[in-house]
């Protein structure tokens, strides 16, 4: 039972909970308590420290901004107006709060607000669906397009869109980069002939990729009626992020242990057999490292690309909030920042787990 739990925890990347399980099972209490202090209490303390620094920082920024506003009012409009502004700021009225780095509590409030907003919108959508169900049936029967909900997407919807885009981009990168990487890795001639292209294209900024994809997709989808921003953003994400996989796959395939190649030769494996039975399994660890980098790069550039391409998602959420300049915009941006970071972390964890599952230790055979 205990071992099963430990194995599951380790598999899920929650290995830090191990001492808790062990302590609960009644094992060596002193050692496990120290482990708990090290692995659980210390990280929590660091989070509290972070929140503390953030709180003090935002407080002092708030004061600076507030004093500046009051001083400005005094200079331009006199003492009476300055007192009014000061009173307004102190009363906590939203209309006159200084616009600066939000405090942790403000961010938390925004987070809850965003969730509430999401629930409202979901309810709204459901109601809309019910209302239009009969009508839509009729329209479909008549061969017309059904009416769809066109209201504003909620924060959670934005997250979903972003994840959808990143996976589409990642899939594209996977489908392009792995086969090309394998082919390039197998042939030294191809490797040397395409090296310049890869080396030049690899460092190109996501923004430029976006523009390039825009140029091409715009022309290619001239007749399409739907929204092309999704296509543009996921293709750009894929193109930006595929290089790590491409380079790693090519390297993995070209640097397979000579012993394995000798085995393939001595057993006289055919070309396909050799690739699928020996070379690919042997280079899988490196290919997966590449894919892991690709996914994290994809997530990172996605935000920038959405921001520029005006395609829905977290990136455009951030940009809209910034343009919006409303009172809680700043704290919403910070919420988005944490969500982005957390999802990126989760994606990396997922890849790491798959990698652990698939790979083998390079020295196991020898």
């Amino acid at each position: 039972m205990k071992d099963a739990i430990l194995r599951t925890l380790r598999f899920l990347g929650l290995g830090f909970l191990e001492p808790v399980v062990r302590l609960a099972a009644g094992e060596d209490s002193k050692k496990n308590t120290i482990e708990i202090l090290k692995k659980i209490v210390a990280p929590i303390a660091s989070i509290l420290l972070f929140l503390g620094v953030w709180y003090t920082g935002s407080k002092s920024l708030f004061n600076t901004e507030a004093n500046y506003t009051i001083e400005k009012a005094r200079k331009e409009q006199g003492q009476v107006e300055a007192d009014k502004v000061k009173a307004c700021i102190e009363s906590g009225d939203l209309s006159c709060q200084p616009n600066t780095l939000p405090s942790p509590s403000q961010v938390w409030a925004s987070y809850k607000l965003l969730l509430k907003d999401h629930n409202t919108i979901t309810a709204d959508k459901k109601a809309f669906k019910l209302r239009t169900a009969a009508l839509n049936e009729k329209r479909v029967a008549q061969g017309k397009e059904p009416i769809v909900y066109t209201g504003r997407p909620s924060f959670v919807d934005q997250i979903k869109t972003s994840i959808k885009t990143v996976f589409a981009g990642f899939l594209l990168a996977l489908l392009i980069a792995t086969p090309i990487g394998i082919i390039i890795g197998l042939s030294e001639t191809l490797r040397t002939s395409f090296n310049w292209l890869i080396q030049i294209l690899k460092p190109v900024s996501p923004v430029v990729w976006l523009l390039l994809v825009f140029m091409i997709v715009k022309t290619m989808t001239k007749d399409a009626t739907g929204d092309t921003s999704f296509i543009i953003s996921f293709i750009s994400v894929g193109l930006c992020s595929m290089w790590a996989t491409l380079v790693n796959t090519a390297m993995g395939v070209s640097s397979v242990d000579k012993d394995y190649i000798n085995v393939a030769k001595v057993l006289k494996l055919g070309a396909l057999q050799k690739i699928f039975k020996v070379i690919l399994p042997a280079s899988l660890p490196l290919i997966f490292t590449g894919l892991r980098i690709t996914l994290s790069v994809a997530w990172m550039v996605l935000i920038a690309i959405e921001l520029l391409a005006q395609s829905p998602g977290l990136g455009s959420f951030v940009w809209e909030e910034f343009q919006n300049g409303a009172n809680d915009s700043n704290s919403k941006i910070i919420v988005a920042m944490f969500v982005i970071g957390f999802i990126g972390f989760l994606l990396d964890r997922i890849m790491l787990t798959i990698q652990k599952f698939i790979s083998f230790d390079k020295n196991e055979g020898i």
Partner: protein
Amino acid sequence: MAYLELNNVSKTFGTGDSTSHVLDKINLHIEEGEFVAIVGFTGSGKTTLVNLINGLDTPTSGEVLFKGKPVRDTSHERGVIFQNYSLLPWLTVYQNVEMAVKEAFPNETKAFRDARIKEYVDLVSLSPAINKRPKELSGGMRQRVSVARALSMDPEMILMDEPLGALDALTRGNLQDEILNIWNKNKRTALLITNDVDEGLYMADRIIPLRPGPNATLGPEFKIDIERPRDKAALNDSEEYKKTRNALIEYLMDIGSERASNTQNLYKLPDLQPKDLRWDF
């Protein structure tokens, strides 16, 4: 005409100034059913020699003839047991052997292959570990898998490149017996490359020392006229064994000291001074 023939085989690597002459005018003749051992120091070109015979490499000059035909490529007729086992770590014992069997018997039924794989795994007494991966096996067990893999292809000749070099003395002894048993059963031709004189004496019909490279050549052969099956314990008392062993060791010692004296060249060292890496302001 001999079963395996090496005529004036030389092998060099590199070109120009960096050319290294590894093997020089090697002549070797092995008859069918014979067990020949080649002993040599580490770095004397043993692995290069074996690669020329199994077809992983081609000689710079001279020819390697197997059954009268020049060796140009690897072949199922010559099974190889590598020094470092070279098992595929992502496959189980069964799958590692299966890979060889599938290639050697592409037209046979699945049942036949399955039986064959199990037979050979059993032959090296690894049946209990048949579904394990190489990392779960000890060094000796891994080498046994390698033996099973090489033999399951039913090669006419077995090439062994220091197969037991990485094993401890006890495991080594056991595996020597196992290999001899298998060899005895269907009298395949065998070539053993080793750095262990006793191993060669115990296993082979003939021992040929490899004079160390560069320009490695084969020395005079030593015939071992001791009846099989040989008993390791009794071997030490056999006059014939002692005589051959002494002669062989004497020969190897001579080459060794010759090599040591040869390498006492005075190397001209480049005039290098440590560079001052501190920042100079």
